[in-house]
């Protein structure tokens, strides 16, 4: 009788584990099926002409050059704006943040901001940067909007990286008479830089795929020129994809698939770089 019960409970356990594995496999398999599908749809469209042409009413001669260049400009500007702000805020919270009310307020606030939908940041950017600051639908307005969007993530990632630096090093620096900033600048930051870089690349690369905020601030969908400076109008790769997906003709869907492949490859490269940096860093600490 007892053995029977035990056997049943073991069978139940095996069944349950099977169910769990299926639950993990379903979304992963779906994702891989979809990735393969988009690769098959898009790969034949990718060639030099596709990468170096402007959008066109004819799907077969359209390309993603303005989107690629726009996205590159956008991401560099976003990094330049959000990195100092994010790292600075993180240093304040980790290294200076006497558990005061202000530090606490900033902390709760960052957690809340991370949960605000990206399309809302678009509305913010539209009113503040595009209209109020008069930046119009420029690269700069887009980059500022994206910077605010990724800021909470950059701050959180940087704090993680700062926390990895052993406390004893800080204490040693302070004991030797360093000021707080000397300690941060000469001891903590040099050790944390690879970790900060990894976190920053991962969080800022997410801005590459952001579409909704850029649509809301009014990024263009049909651009036949390359941006010259931060005040230029622009389009971006995800906007181009959205534009092509929204068209009924199958030929444009094929273009969308090809552009998606390019976007995913760029994202993959960013992630590989981040992982390489992280691995090197781990080796050094070990």
């Amino acid at each position: 009788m007892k053995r029977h019960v035990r056997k049943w409970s073991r069978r139940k356990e095996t069944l349950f584990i099977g169910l769990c594995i299926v639950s993990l496999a379903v979304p992963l398999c779906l994702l891989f099926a979809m990735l393969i599908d988009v690769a098959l749809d898009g790969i034949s469209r990718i060639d030099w002409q596709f990468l170096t042409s402007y959008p066109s009413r004819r799907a077969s001669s359209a390309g993603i050059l303005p989107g690629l260049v726009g996205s590159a400009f956008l991401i560099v500007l976003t990094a330049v704006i959000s990195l100092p702000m994010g790292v600075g805020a993180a240093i304040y919270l980790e290294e200076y943040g006497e558990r005061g009310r202000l530090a606490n307020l900033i902390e709760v606030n960052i957690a809340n901001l991370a949960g605000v939908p990206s399309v809302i940041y678009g509305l913010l950017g539209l009113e503040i940067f595009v209209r109020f600051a008069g930046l119009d639908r420029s690269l700069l307005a887009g980059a500022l909007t994206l910077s605010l969007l990724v800021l909470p993530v950059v701050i959180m990632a940087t704090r993680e990286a700062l926390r990895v630096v052993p406390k004893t090093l800080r204490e040693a620096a302070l004991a030797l008479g360093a000021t707080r900033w000397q300690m941060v600048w000469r001891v903590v930051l040099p050790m944390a830089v690879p970790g900060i870089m990894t976190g920053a690349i991962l969080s800022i690369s997410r801005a590459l795929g952001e579409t909704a905020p850029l649509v809301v601030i009014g990024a263009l969908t049909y651009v036949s020129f390359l941006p010259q400076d931060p005040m230029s109008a622009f389009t971006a790769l995800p906007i181009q994809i959205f534009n092509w997906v929204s068209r009924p003709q199958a030929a444009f869907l094929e273009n969308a698939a090809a552009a998606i492949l390019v976007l995913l490859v760029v994202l993959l490269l960013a992630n590989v770089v981040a992982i390489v940096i992280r691995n090197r860093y781990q080796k050094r600490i070990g």
Partner: protein
Amino acid sequence: MNLGLGLTRKLAGRRATPPVESIIRLFLLGFGVISVITTVGIIYVLAAETFLFFSDVSLADFLFDTEWTPLFADKHFGIWPLLGGTFLSSFIAALFALPLGLLGAIYLSEFAPERIRKIVKPMVELLAGIPTVVYGYFALVFLTPALQNVVPDLSGFNALSPGIIIGIMIIPTIASLSEDAIYAVPVNLREGAYALGASRLSTVFHVVLPAARSGILASVTLAVSRAIGETMVVAIAAGQQPRLTLDPRVPIETMTAYIVKVSMGDTPTGTLEYRTIFAVGATLFLLTLVMNVITQRFARKYRGVV
């Protein structure tokens, strides 16, 4: 940068803070305050435009009209079709993601060998790294045609397919955060249960999961909040037709998709149409804010327990 300056000592054993230090400190604080300004900015922008919106449209119309047609000649401003669309797609997403994400989390933390856990967890997190516009393409071009073979009368634009895709998107949120919560349950609780003769399954269900409850709930509310705010998937694949329905097979429109639709139409500033996106945005913001506050309450509780 010359940092060797200012190591003057005022009193024995007490160091005066050099001016450079205070300036740097203020600078860093300023960066932190930017995030607070961002929040204030969001609230101000939404509130100001929504206020103007309600000077033209009565709150009663907004809350009790069942039609949303601000771009038509016969204008109606009832939020319900958009709220309903958001509710429907998020509900489908949660229905799909909740069991899968939770079971996945239980497996990864309780049953999977360490080796597998180390490989699978990043793979699951990969699901969250795919841009949403790409997921939109998947919903429209891959999943909807596939589902049309199974679901009769499934329209080319519908709530079902984007709902499922959003579900896939939010699985990492549920799985990863719940896994952290389950993993953090102290081992001696499990050992106590085993010592009392409980099987692994009943230990999981009667001891571990209840102990990890607030962490799991936090992951779920956060995931639902993401689903509510998700934009591109529904903008691409759900159809842009505001409709008060619970039928997942027909085209609908969510709050987020409406904002995108109007933004693409180049609506001039100061018009009522322009203000509608802020009124809708404010509603969306309030909804996600409530979810986030609940999330943080659960998260605090969970950190308090562990």
